[in-house]
Each structure stands twice: as C-alpha cells, then as structure tokens.
C-alpha cells in the first residue's frame, strides 16, 4: 500500500506539482496572458478542432467497423480484427512516417497532403483508429439479438432497429471510445511532427507548441499550454468514469 502511494507520488504527482507551480510562479494574471497569446490560442484551437472532427469520424467508422467484426463473416475477418490494434503497437513516429510515404511528396497515388492541416487529421485518424472499435465491439458481441428480431417481426425497418435498439445499447461504448480517442488526439505529437510541418498559426498543434517553446527556452508559454492540456486530460478521464458509472447503473436497474 505504502509502496503504491509512494511510487505514484514520486513518478506522477510530484511532476504534476512541478508543472502547476512553474505555470503560476508569476501569478494567475501572467498565466492568463501567456495562455491567451495568439500563437497559444491558435494551437489550442487547431488541436481541439481537429480532435472534434476526428472524434466524429471515429464514432461513425469505429462503430461501423465493430459492427462488421461482430455481425459479418468473411475470410480474413480474424486478420482484420488483429490488424485494428496495430496503431497501439506501432510507434507513433513510425505511424507518421508511413502516412508520409503514401500521402507525401512522392505519393504513388497522387495525393500529397504533407505539411497541411489535412495531414494532421490523417495522422490523428491513424492513431485513434482502435479506440471506438475496441469499446463498441464487446458490447455489440454481448447484445441480445432477440429484441432486434422482435422489432423486425413487428415491421421495423433496419434503420429503425439500429436507432431504437442497437444504438442506445452501444452508446456508452461509443462515447467512452470517443473520449479516449479525443484525449489521445489532443496530446498527440509523434505521428504529427514529421508530417504537419509545424508552422505556427497554421499547422502547429498544442503538443508541438509545448515542445517548440521548451526548445526555445520559453518555459512560461510551454507550461501554460501544458496546464490546459492537463486539465483537458483530467476532464476526459472524469467523463469516461462518469459514462462507465452511468452505463453500469443502468444495467443494475434493468
């Protein structure tokens, strides 16, 4: 017990305290003026905007992929199932580099999105691909299909069956997968750093902003944006905990 708390304090809590203290040494006012500086705001806006778009795409494509993996059957399905986890196993910098070979300056398919915002979306889609699939898949697997059959025999169309029966059941899974992916997208650097060009006000995401400002010796700027990212991470973990709590409470009452 003492080991766990001591370890967590030294490895996690002390560094957090160091960041919070560094970002507020010159007062709350100073923190606010640094975090609202145009370049910081631009990077945070870009990051959050990209994370929202990527989350929406993940919610749709992730659910669709999970559905295919659970309800469909075809040769190569187990291979497809295994491949989904590849972005978890692959180093992020390798992820960015692979995208650059297919969608970069020497693209064999004629698509060159290097050093644009599109590159950022693509890199984030790559890195966050498994999250929704892996949170929806087990729920869909456990889902009792009798209710769907009943709805169909009562004349409900497929879209109605999905909306009224399947979706309410898998919604908590979709939401927690989206939240995990969102957190990942907000903090991502490895997959982005080679492919985005990192131009301030254009393609500089928050993580790259922090990195660049550490390199240039601007610890205040780096710390201020890092504190915002830390707050976002905490809020998302809270949200995931809340979703999990609500989902299981629903189960207990049912």
């Amino acid at each position: 017990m003492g080991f766990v708390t001591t370890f967590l304090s030294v490895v996690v809590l002390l560094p957090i305290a160091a960041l919070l203290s560094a970002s507020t040494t010159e007062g709350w006012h100073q923190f606010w003026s640094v975090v609202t500086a145009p370049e910081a705001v631009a990077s945070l806006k870009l990051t959050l905007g990209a994370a929202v778009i990527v989350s929406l795409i993940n919610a749709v494509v992730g659910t669709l992929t999970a559905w295919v993996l659970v309800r469909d059957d075809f040769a190569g399905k187990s291979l497809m199932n295994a491949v989904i986890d590849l972005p978890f196993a692959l180093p992020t910098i390798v992820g960015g580099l692979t995208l650059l070979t297919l969608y970069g300056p020497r693209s064999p398919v004629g698509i060159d999105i290097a050093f644009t915002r599109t590159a950022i979306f693509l890199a984030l889609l790559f890195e966050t691909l498994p999250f929704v699939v892996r949170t929806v898949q087990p729920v869909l697997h456990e889902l009792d299909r009798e209710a769907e059959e009943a709805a169909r025999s009562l004349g409900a169309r497929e879209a109605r069956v999905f909306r009224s029966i399947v979706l309410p059941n898998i919604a908590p899974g979709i939401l927690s997968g989206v939240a995990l992916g969102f957190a990942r997208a907000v903090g991502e650097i490895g997959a982005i750093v080679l492919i985005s060009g990192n131009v301030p006000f254009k393609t500089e995401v928050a993580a790259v902003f922090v990195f660049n400002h550490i390199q240039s010796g601007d610890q205040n700027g780096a710390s201020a944006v890092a504190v915002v990212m830390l707050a976002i991470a905490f809020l998302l973990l809270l949200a995931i905990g809340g979703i999990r709590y609500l989902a299981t409470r629903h189960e207990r009452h049912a």
Partner: protein
Amino acid sequence: MRRLGLRSVAIFYLVAILLGPLAMVFYRAFEHGIHPLWSSLTDPNTIHAFRLTLEITAIAVPVNTIFGVVCALAIVRRRFPGAGIVNAIVDLPLALSPVVVGLMLFLLYGRSGWFGSWTSAHGVQVLFATPSMVIATIFVSLPFVAREVVPTLRELGDEQEQAAHTLGASGWQTFWRVTLPSIRWAVIYGVVLTTARCLGEYGAVAVVSGHIEGQTETATLRVQDYYENFNLTGAYGIAIVLAVISVLVLTAMTLLKPKESA
C-alpha cells in the same frame, strides 16, 4: 448487399489509413536495394540508439510490472479510502500528452527544479541523460499492467486466497501459489503492451533527452533525426525494424487473448 457495402467501407478505411501506408514504407525502405538500408542500420549511432531503447525498456518494463501487480492488488483487495483516486492517477498517462509528461520532468529535474539542484549538487546528471528518459518511459507506460490485472482480479474473487489463508499459507505463499498463477495471462498481456509502449515512446523522451546523437538518441528519435537530415532510407529502415517488432507484439497479443479468457 448492405452487409457487403459496410464490409467494403470498413476494409477500404483500414487499407487507406493503415495498411496501405505501412506497405509503402516497406517498399520505400528497400527501393534502393539492401546496401544503403544496411549501412544506415549498422551506423554506430543507430546501433547505439537501438541499444539505448532496449536498455530503457529493460528497466521500465520490470518496474511497471511489479508496480502494476502490487497496485492492482491494492485497488481490488484492500478497498482502502482513496482507491478511486489511485485508479484515476494510474489512468492519467493514457489521457495525458507525452510532451506534457516530458515538460513536467524537465521542470522537476531541470537546473532550477526541485530535484534538479539536488541531483546536480550530487553529481548526477538526470536531464539530458538516461535517468530522465527512463523516468519518462516509466510514466507513459505506467497503466498497462495494472489495467489488465485489475479486471482479472475482480472476476477471480478472493475465495481461493481466503482458503489458502485458512489453511495456514502466509501472504507470500498465497500470492505465489494462488494469486499469481491465476492472473499470469493478464500480467503477460500487460507486459507485452508495456513493452510496445516503451519501445515506441517518442514525445516525453524527445523533451527530456536533449536529442544528443550517439548519446541520448533512442530508436524513435533516430527516425526523426534521419528524416530531418534527408537520409530517408535510414528513417524508413529504422521504421520497418520497429514495425516488425510491433507486428510481433501484435501477434503475441492475438495469441494471448483467447488464453486470457479461458
């Protein structure tokens, strides 16, 4: 028909985002033959980078394995006040940017940091050296073992442990003979995930390492170094070595998963 449509969309997306790019990086690596690839991979600084990555992983994985198992036992078996908070802190590295982790350590162990002045007074170089890179890697790979073991322990219940205890087994005996054998697949699965995360770490290590070629450069930093110095073959070469390791990790994961539920 509709089923076929959905299947095609899912497969197309996977190929466009994931498999296509991955295949292309292998093609590009071998594009100019084996020789430039081989000389980039056997460059002394590259070999050093791989060795450093392995060293860091060799420290971080055992540390996080022991911590993960102890932490999971504490969370599940000792319902102590604040278990929820411990649980949340363990999950934090999953949601937090590795760059922010790097910055935190940079501030803590930097010259004006709380620990930095003490360590430099005792002649220990932490920042821009291996120790900070090990700490950063431990931080980012912290949750994986604990997160795998916690649900397994919950499902297991503590009846067998109670029985062992009643029959006079000590805490250690119970752990080694009863608990550990039941959670071993979860532990192994967690170790595989931790290893993958350690080998691939970039953001936190990029901040604290100082990126010194031949000294504090890991394999992932070497990829960036090669890329930025226009040695693309070298960058692709390290990338495919790391990708092959990832595929091996993935295979291990796939093979372990059914055993876990059995």
